[in-house]
C-alpha cells in the first residue's frame, strides 16, 4: 500500500515537473520578457544611483552592484514567480482541477521554483552583460568560493520559502500587489542587498540586520569581493542557517494549514496580488 502511494507521489512529481517545463517552453516569450524587464527596471535605478558617485569611483562600485542586483533578482523571482503566479493559478480555476485529480496545489506551486531559478539565471546573465560592458575589470570574482556558494544556496532557500508562504497566504487573503512591490524595494535599499550593511547609516544597519536576507547577502559579498560581514563571520553563518530553517518551517506549515483549510471550507480568497 505504501509503495503504491510512493509510486503515485513520484508520478505526480514527474507530471508537475513536465507541466512546468512545458509551460516554460510554451510561454518562452513571456519568460524572456520577464527576465529582460526586471533587469531593465533595476538598471534604471542603478544608473541613477551611479550619478551620486564621482566619475572616477564608478568602476570600484560595479562588482558590489552586480552582486546586489543578482541577489535581489533571486528574491524578486521567488516572490513573483511563485507568490505572484498564484493569482493566475487561482483565476484560471487550476485549484479545483488539482483537487479533482487528488494533487496538492502546493506541489504544483513548489515546483515553480524551477521557473523562478531559471528566470533568475537568465536575468543575472543579462545583468552581467550590461554591468561588465560598463566595467574595465572582471566583475565576476570569487575570493572565497565556499562562502559565496553557502550564501547563495541559503539565500535561494530563504527566497523560495518566502515565495511559498506568500502563495499560501494568498489562498486565504488578498495580498496587495503594491505591498509586495514596496517590500521588494525596501529589501533592496535597507535589506543590505544593494550596499553592505557596514556602509548603511547607523539606524538603518539595525533594520538591515532584522531583515533575514541581509545575512546571506553579507556572506555572498565576503565570498565574492571580500567585504567582511558587519557581524563576526561565525555569527553571520549561524544566523543565516537559523533564519533559513525558520523560514522553511514557516513555509511548510503555512502550506499544510492552508491546504487543509481550503479543502474543508472551500476557496474563499482570490489569490490577488
Amino acid at each position, binding site marked *: 500500500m505504501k509503495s503504491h502511494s510512493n509510486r503515485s507521489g513520484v508520478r505526480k512529481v514527474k507530471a508537475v515537473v513536465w507541466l512546468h517545463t512545458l*509551460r516554460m517552453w510554451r*510561454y518562452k*516569450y*513571456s519568460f524572456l*520578457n*520577464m527576465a*529582460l*524587464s526586471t533587469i*531593465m*527596471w533595476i*538598471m*534604471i*535605478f*542603478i*544608473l*541613477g*544611483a*551611479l*550619478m*551620486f*558617485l*564621482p*566619475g572616477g*569611483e564608478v568602476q570600484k*562600485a560595479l562588482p558590489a552592484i552586480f552582486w546586489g542586483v543578482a541577489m535581489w533578482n533571486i528574491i524578486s523571482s521567488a516572490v513573483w514567480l511563485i507568490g505572484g503566479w498564484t493569482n*493566475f493559478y487561482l*483565476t*484560471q480555476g487550476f485549484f479545483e482541477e488539482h483537487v479533482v485529480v487528488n494533487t496538492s496545489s502546493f506541489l504544483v506551486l513548489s515546483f515553480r521554483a524551477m521557473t523562478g531559478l531559471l528566470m533568475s539565471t537568465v536575468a543575472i546573465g543579462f545583468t552581467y552583460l550590461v554591468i561588465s*560592458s560598463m566595467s574595465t575589470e572582471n566583475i565576476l570574482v570569487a575570493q572565497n568560493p565556499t562562502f559565496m556558494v553557502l550564501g547563495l544556496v541559503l539565500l535561494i532557500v530563504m527566497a523560495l520559502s518566502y515565495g511559498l508562504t506568500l502563495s499560501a497566504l494568498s489562498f486565504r487573503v488578498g495580498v*496587495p*500587489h*503594491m*505591498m509586495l*512591490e*514596496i517590500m521588494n*524595494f525596501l529589501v*533592496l*535599499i*535597507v535589506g543590505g542587498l*544593494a*550596499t553592505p550593511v557596514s*556602509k*548603511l*547609516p547607523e539606524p538603518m544597519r539595525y533594520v538591515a540586520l532584522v531583515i533575514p536576507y541581509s545575512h546571506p547577502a553579507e556572506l555572498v559579498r565576503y565570498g565574492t569581493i571580500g567585504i567582511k560581514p558587519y557581524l563576526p563571520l561565525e555569527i553571520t553563518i549561524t544566523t543565516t542557517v537559523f533564519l533559513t530553517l525558520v523560514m522553511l518551517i514557516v513555509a511548510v506549515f503555512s502550506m499544510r494549514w492552508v491546504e487543509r483549510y481550503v479543502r474543508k471550507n472551500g476557496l474563499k480568497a482570490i489569490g490577488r496580488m
Partner: protein
Amino acid sequence: MVDWRDILKAQLFSTVCWYRNNKWMLITTFVWPYLMVGTIFGIGMALGSLEEYAERVGVVNPALYLLASSAVAMSSVYIMYSITGFVLENRWIGTLPYLLLSPAKTHTVIVFSSLPDALTSPVFTAIAIIPAAVYFEGFTGALRIFIVLLITILGMLPLMGLSVIMASTILFLKEESNIMGSVVPFILLVSGVYYPIEVLPRVLQVISQFVPVTYVVEATKIVSTYLTSEARMLMVALYMIGLLTVGYNLLATLAMTKVERAIKSKGAL
C-alpha cells in the same frame, strides 16, 4: 449606439469603484513616488553624495527633480500598461469576445476603456508629490509639479497609438503574461529618466530621439530647474512631443484596421 463617451463613462465609474474597494492600493499610489526616490536616494547616498548628482545631471534642486522625474516615470508610460493590461485581463476572464462584439470599433473600446486608469495615475502621483514640492519651494514648487503633470499627460498622446499596436501583438502571440512588459522599462531606460542620456551606449542614444518620454523627461528637467533662459528648450521638447504624437498615431491608425481584421479572421482571442 455606443460611442467613446459611453465607454469612457462606464470605465471611469469602474475605476472609481475599484479604488473605493481597494483603499490599500489608493494609499500605495501616494507612497509610490517617494519609494522610487527613496530607492535611488538610498543606494546613491550609500555610494556618493547628492551634490555630485546635482552636478552630473545638471539640475539645481536634485530632490525635486528626482520626485518630478519619478512621477514622469510612473505615469507617462502607464497608458501602455493600462491598454495592454486591459486586453490581457479581459482575455484571461473570457470577456474579450464580448467587448469586441460591441458596436464601437475595437481600438475605440481598447483606448477609451484604458484611459481613466491611465489618467488617474498621473493625477494621483502629482497630488502625492505636491506636499514635497511645497516643502522645497513653496507655491512655485506646486506650480512646477502642475506643469509637469500637464506635460506628462501630453506625453501620453504619442504612446497611445503604440500601445494599441502592442495590445494587438499580445493577442496574436497568445502568451500568458504581458509580453510587452519589457517595452516599458526599455522606453524609460533610453529616455534617461534619472541620468543624462549621454551615459548610455551610442545606439541607445539614437533610439532615445524617437521615444516621446525622452522629451517629457527633458521638459521636466527644464521645469524643475526653472531657468527662463531655457524656455526655448522647453518649447523644442513640446514640439517634438507634438510631432511624435502625429507620427505614432498616424502609424497606429493605418495599422489598426488591418490588425483588427486579422485578429477577427484568425480568431486570435
